[in-house]
């Protein structure tokens, strides 16, 4: 599904060049579930953002669904990620002014999907995540676990092929975290590829493959 070849990313501070990513080579197949682990500052999140096309890299090749991302203009890149990639964040990043229902609906609005169709899709999603009763609440009225459910629902509403999750359970207690991980497993079984960044060995074990990062380099 995607392939990173010799990816480098660095910043220049004065005369020094600090590498954030060093020679990353990674291939992800459709339907894979990958966990990225590593200490703070090892470049996990940056790698995830590069895969998600939110961040740029300085050197290397990136092919996504047989298209060369590194040759694309920003506009094409964002069109690509909007179509195929969903994002889940540690801090949920819901829009506080919108209700649960509206948060999930928003991506569809931006894709100009008809109102009746939107209704059906959001209703499906609410059903599936068991949050129908919460649909008119605002994010601040929900627990962390519930907020993350909404975050995932929003990421999935546009039917992405790849879900990128940056420490999705980082702000949750262990029980809530476990539920989210179970959910990811189910999603993965339905065919969605998942790449998650995590600190937890236990959560990492849900994945089919673990990648260890240290100082911007893939270990072992």
């Amino acid at each position: 599904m995607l392939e990173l070849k010799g990816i480098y990313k660095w910043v220049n501070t004065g005369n020094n060049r600090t590498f954030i990513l060093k020679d990353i080579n990674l291939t992800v197949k459709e339907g894979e579930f990958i966990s990225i682990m590593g200490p703070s500052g090892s470049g996990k999140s940056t790698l995830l953002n590069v895969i998600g096309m939110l961040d740029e890299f300085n050197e290397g090749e990136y092919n996504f669904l047989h298209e060369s991302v590194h040759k694309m203009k920003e506009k094409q890149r964002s069109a690509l990620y909007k179509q195929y990639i969903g994002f889940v964040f540690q801090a949920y990043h819901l829009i506080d002014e919108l209700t649960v229902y509206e948060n999930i609906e928003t991506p569809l609005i931006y894709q100009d999907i008809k109102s009746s169709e939107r209704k059906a899709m959001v209703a499906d999603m609410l059903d599936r995540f068991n949050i129908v009763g919460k649909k008119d609440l605002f994010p601040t009225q929900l627990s962390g676990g519930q907020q993350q459910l909404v975050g995932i629902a929003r990421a999935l509403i546009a039917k992405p092929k790849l879900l990128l999750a940056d420490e999705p359970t980082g702000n949750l207690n262990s029980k809530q975290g476990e539920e989210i991980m179970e959910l990811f497993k189910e999603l993965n079984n339905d065919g969605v590829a998942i790449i998650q960044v995590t600190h937890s060995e236990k959560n990492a074990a849900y994945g089919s493959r673990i990648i260890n990062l240290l100082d911007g380099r893939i270990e072992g």
Partner: protein
Amino acid sequence: MIKHYFKTAWRNLFRQKFTSIINIAGLSIGMAAAVLIFLWVKNEFGFDNYHKDADDIYRVKNYLSISKEDTWVWENSPFLLGENAKQQIPEVLDVCRIRPLGYGTQYFNIKGQFYGEDNCAYIDSSWLHVFNYKFLAGSAQAFNDHPFSMLLTETKAKKYFGNENAVGRMIRIDTVDYQVQGVLADNPANSSFQFDVLVPLAARTENPKNKKNDESWGNFNYITFLKLTPSGDPKKVAGKLKEIIAKQREQNNLDVSLQALKSLRFETDLQNSVMQHSDIKVVYIFAVLGILLLLIACINYVNLTTARATLRAREVSIRKIIGAEKKQLFLQFIAESVMISLLSLIATMLIVQVSLPLFNRFTEKTFALSFGSTDLWIIAGSTLFVTVLLTSIYPALLLSSFKPLAIFRGIHVLKLKDGTLRKGLVVLQFTISIILIVGTIVIYSQLQFVNKENSAYNRSQLLSVSVPYKVWGKYKEEQRVGIMGAFKEELLAQSNIADVSLMNSESIVNMEGSSSGNSTDWDGRAAGFTPAIAFFRVDTSFKNMVNLKMKEGRWYQTGNGADIHNSVLNETAVREFNIHKPVIGQRFVSQGDTGVVIGVVEDFYYKSLHEKIGPVVIRTADENNTTFLIKTAPGKIKEAEKAAATVWKKFYPTEPFSANFLDEEFEKLYRADKKTSTLIWSFSIIAIFISCLGLFGLAAFTAEKRNKEIGIRKILGASVTSIISLLSREFVYMVLLSMVIAFPIAWLAMNKWLENFAYRISIAWWIFLTAAMIALAIAMITVSFQAIKAAMANPVRSLKTE
């Protein structure tokens, strides 16, 4: 999609209540000021354009050069010019004339009760079809058919006859009975013709004496309008008019031009006029001020919105990540400012509605705000449009431009450029405010100066009573002196009247007449030097009543028979006439009467300070003096007026009595300046208030943003004062910078304004200092309110939330 935009906008509005309230308050005040100003501006520019043929109507304007030094510009023409123009000039389709019914107030006699009316005029029969009038009752036909007819405006008809039918009712003026033949809709606010009562000219020319007098080519008494053919060239027609008049007059000192009806409002060179005129420059200045006030209000929105942009960065990032295009975000932010502007518009309409009575009193217009009026909606709509344009584009561009990763990088997404722009806008706001403050102080000081200069005598203890020509004209000259003398004696006998002087001029505050010095002569006068002179004819008590100061020589003495040939001059007369030294005793011929100069008085004001004091010749004893200047016992002005009325009734039982209070005359003389003063004052209050609202919001935001920094500083031992100064310093610098920009502009502008006065203050340094102190103090109070709040807060709390 649109629904989604407005829903989000609406929720954001509520989430940021504080900012929203500041935004709406500032915008609605600015917009209300702009709407009111532009209602007025539109009215000024639309003067007299509602007449169907407005484009083809002109008024004859005469320039009479009376000496090398002076040209008199008149709106009046000889009566016969009208007929002659119509007969001899093919381009002239129609002619109509108007003249006031008499000098000053006319008194209606309705069943023995007197009612004063100020705006009455004679019109000839074509007036009503050259100009557009709307008849509510009666007809032009009936009016023109009977010479002693009268038309009333709706308001006046209501005043006299209530809801009853006014047509057919009788009104007596002097000894003539007029029958109401029609009721007209009230004159529009944008009409130069604010006459409430119209009477056919035929009523005047019925009297052969009047007719003979009017038909003399030397009498310029009729305001004459011409309707030209659409292709008629007003310049050519004016040339032909000049020829017609020149043929009839011996002197060839007259020039003629045609004044277009549509720009009649902005005619300012007339010597005097029965219409109200305004200065087009003033209209432009107010239009600019209206735009500036709106701009100041819009700046608040832009500043507060962009300042808070950092708080919106997260939302923008999320939206971009979940699929929003830049265009979609741009429209979302536009929707927000549209929503704020719409809410402000509602508040604006309320403010406008509430302040309208005040505004009408101030403009002396009757603007009505029916919500069906297209004018109102055009103005409100364009104000809204400009507001949306100014408030939306920049913030929307800025906000929608964030890169999605801003979310991970905290709040350092705003570049320095934006902060600088915001400071620049605050500086602009304060520059405008400070200019207005300086303006307010300068105008106030000048008006104080006017008061001080005019304090030679106590105006509040003086009133004047004039006997109209039609009353004393009946008597022979010898009789007049006797009757006036008796009248004066009777007045003096009243306990509340301290002194009385009989004089020729109706006003000593604003003496309007000045005569050419044709029959004035003195030794050493250059041939052909005939300056305009103000002649005062008074009696001996005049000097003490108005506190004239003798510079040389003596004042008139009671009982000195020779004095009636002599003259007293003012300093300017001595200087400009170049009277030989010693001045006292020089031969002086005044209006054909030879005597000597017996005294020189110090210059005194007899006109507004806008005009230079000219040469004044004071003479005594004139049988044509008909105005009594009355000095009252201290604080007894009302009682004195009553006493004068009683005396009047004794002498002229059938004539209406009226008195002029010098205080009121004085007030009238400077009314335009007072208005400017009030306006600039209100504008500066509005500007300062809106600017401070913005500053308040910005300061609150800065304090909020630096919450953590303040917490750390306090834990490290910073004092409350040092934190206040930390937070306020930046704003003080901005205000200081505004001063540097504002002062030269204010200085230039106010000097320009002061040039309207012949006698004026010079702009002193303390005026700038005061303005500086005011601006700084207001800004400091605004900012430090937030700074103190932040500085006093418990640091632990602000750090805990991180």
